[in-house]
C-alpha cells in the first residue's frame, strides 16, 4: 500500500459508525436541502388537513340552505353577518361564507385531482410496464396511443370527452384519467426498458419467477422514482384542469362546487368591483398548485440520478 493511499484513508472521518445512512434518510436529507420545497410541503399538508377536516373547521356548512341568509349576500370581507360570525373572506350572492365555501371546495378539488391522478397512475403504469415487458406489437400499439394522446393538448381532449359524456364529477374524473394516463405510461415504459436489461431482472428470470411477480415485485419498484415525480406534478395539473373545466361550466355540478366553480360564480360580480367572490378561491387554488409543484420540483431534483453529482 502506498503512503498516499494511507494518507487518504486516514483523512476520511469515520462518520459511518455514528449513524447508518439509509437510502430513505439520504432522500429526506436531500429533500430538506431546499427550504422552498419544505415550505411547499408544509403548506400542502395544511391545505390537505383543511380539506379533510373542513366540516369541523368551517364556520358554516355552505351547502346547508338553512344556514344561509340571502340578506348576507355579497358582503365584503370582514363584515359580521346575521348569524353573528365574521365573514373573513366575504360572502357570495347567496350569502355563503366564502371561507367555508373554499374549505369545502378544496375537498372537491383535491379529491378529484388526487383521485384521477391515482387511477391514471395505476392504468398508465400498468400499460407502460406491459409495453416495456411485452415489447413488439403490444409495445408499439400502446405507444402509438400514448403519442396520439400526448399530441393533443389536455384541455382539448378533456373538452372532447366531456362533450360526449356530459357534466358530473365522475365524468370529470374519467376525462382527467383519459387525458393523463399517457404521461405515466411513457414514464414507466422508459424506465422499465432500461431496468429490464439489468442483471437483477435476468436473475429473476433465471429463478423462473412468475411474470407477474417479476413485473410488480422487481420491475415496478425500480420504476418508482420517476413515477412519483410525474404523479406529483400530475396531481397539480389535474387540479388545475378540473378547475378550468368547472370554470367553463363543463366540470362539477353546481351542487358540489370545486374551487373552479366558485371562481366562475364570482365572474359576473367581478366587473362591478366585488372581487372577493372570485379572488379568494383563486388564491386558494394557486397556493395549492404552487405548493405541489414546489414539492414536485425538488422531488425531481433529488430522485433524478442524472442531476446528482
Amino acid at each position: 500500500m502506498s503512503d498516499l493511499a494511507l494518507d487518504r484513508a486516514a483523512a476520511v472521518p469515520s462518520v459511518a459508525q455514528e449513524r447508518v445512512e439509509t437510502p430513505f434518510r439520504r432522500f429526506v436529507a436531500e429533500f430538506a436541502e431546499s427550504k422552498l420545497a419544505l415550505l411547499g410541503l408544509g403548506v400542502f399538508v395544511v391545505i390537505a388537513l383543511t380539506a379533510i377536516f373542513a366540516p369541523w373547521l368551517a364556520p358554516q356548512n355552505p351547502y346547508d340552505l338553512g344556514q344561509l341568509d340571502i340578506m348576507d349576500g355579497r358582503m365584503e370581507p370582514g363584515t359580521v353577518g346575521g348569524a353573528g360570525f365574521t365573514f373573513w373572506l366575504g360572502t357570495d350572492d347567496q350569502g355563503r361564507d366564502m371561507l367555508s365555501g373554499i374549505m369545502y371546495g378544496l375537498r372537491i378539488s383535491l379529491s378529484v385531482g388526487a383521485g384521477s391522478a391515482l387511477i391514471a397512475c395505476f392504468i398508465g403504469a400498468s400499460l407502460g410496464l406491459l409495453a416495456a415487458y411485452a415489447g413488439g406489437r403490444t409495445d408499439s400499439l400502446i405507444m402509438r396511443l400514448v403519442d396520439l394522446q400526448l399530441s393533443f393538448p389536455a384541455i382539448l381532449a378533456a373538452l372532447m370527452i366531456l362533450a360526449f359524456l356530459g357534466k358530473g364529477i365522475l365524468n370529470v374524473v374519467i376525462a382527467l384519467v383519459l387525458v393523463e394516463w399517457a404521461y405515466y405510461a411513457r414514464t414507466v415504459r422508459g424506465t422499465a426498458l432500461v431496468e429490464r436489461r439489468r442483471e437483477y431482472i435476468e436473475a429473476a428470470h433465471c429463478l423462473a419467477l412468475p411474470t407477474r411477480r417479476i413485473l410488480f415485485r422487481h420491475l415496478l419498484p425500480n420504476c418508482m422514482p420517476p413515477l412519483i415525480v410525474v404523479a406529483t406534478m400530475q396531481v397539480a395539473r389535474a387540479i388545475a384542469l378540473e378547475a378550468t373545466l368547472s370554470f367553463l361550466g363543463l366540470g362539477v355540478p353546481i351542487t358540489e362546487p370545486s374551487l373552479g366553480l366558485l371562481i366562475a360564480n364570482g365572474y359576473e360580480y367581478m366587473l362591478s368591483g366585488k372581487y372577493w367572490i372570485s379572488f379568494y378561491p383563486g388564491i386558494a387554488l394557486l397556493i395549492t398548485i404552487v405548493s405541489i409543484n414546489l414539492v414536485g420540483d425538488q422531488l425531481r431534483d433529488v430522485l433524478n440520478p442524472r442531476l446528482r453529482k
Partner: protein
Amino acid sequence: MSVYMLRRLLQAVAVVFAMSLIVFVGVYAIGDPVEILISPDADQIERERAIAALGLDLPLWEQYFVFLSKALQGDLGRSFVFNEPALRLILQRMPATLELAFGATIMALVIGLPLGLYAGLRPDSPVSRTIMAGSILGFSLPTFWVGLMLIMVFAVQLGWLPSTGRGPTREFLGMQWSFLTWDGLRHLLLPAINLSLFKISLVIRLTRAGVRETILMDFVKFARAKGLSPNRVIFVHVFKNILIPVVTVVGLELGSTIAFSVVTESVFAWPGMGKLIIDSINVLDRPVIVAYLMIIVMMFIIINLVVDLTYSVLDPRVRLEAKGT
C-alpha cells in the same frame, strides 16, 4: 426531400382518419346519436324522418362510411342553433382565434427569449432567480383565474383597457381582424397576455436550458478563441443554436395555444372558435362540436408539418438528412 415529405403526409392522413374514427365513435357510439344529431326540439315524426335521412338505421360501419364521405365533401352538418353549416360557422370565427393565438405566441417569444437568455447567462444572479421563480408561477397559475385578475386590475380598477369583446375590426384578405385598428389592439392586449403567460414561462425555461447547454460547447469556446466580441458569440453562435429547439416547441405549441384559447376566449368574451365550442357544448349543438374537433385535428397536423419544414430550414443537418432519404 420528396420521399420524406410524402411519408410525413401519409402519416398525417393516417392521423386524420384515426381521429375521425374516434370522433365518430364518440358521437355515434358513446352518446345517443339521435339526441346528438337531431335538435331536441324536434317532434316524433321529424325525429323518425331524420333518423332515416341520417342513415341511423344502417349498420355502424356503413354509418361511418357515410359520415366520412360527407366530411370529405366538407359537410360536417348544420348547427341547430344558428341553422348554418357548422363548418362555415367555425371558419367565420377562426380569424379571431388565430389572431389571439399568434399575438400570444409573438408575445411569448418577445418576452421569453430575452429573459431566458439572461437567466441562462447569469444563472446565479438574483434577477435570474426571480425570473425562474416567476416562470414556475407562470406554469402554476390557472389561466382563467389570471384572466379574471387582469380584467379586475386593468379594466375594472384602473380602467386602462377594455374588459371583454373584440373591438372594431377591419377587413384584410377577406377576413375581419382586430389588430389593424388601435381600439382593436387595445382589446387584443389583455387576452393575448393572458394566453401567453404559460408560453412565456415555457420559452424562458427552454431558452435558459438551451443557453446553459450551448455555452459549454466547444464551438462557443472556439468562437471566443477567434477573438469575436461577446455580443457576436452570444447573439450569433449561441442564439442561433437555441433558436432551433425554441422555435420548434413554440411552433408545436401553437396548436395547444389555439386549444387553450378556449379558456381565454371564455373569460374575455372573445368571439373566436373557442367561445363558440364552449357555447355549443353548453347548448348541445353537436354538429358544431364535431366540426370543431375535426378542424382542430387538421390544424394540428398542418402545424406539425409546417414546424417540420421550418426546422429543416433552420437546422442544416436535418435538411441534408431529408434530402438523403
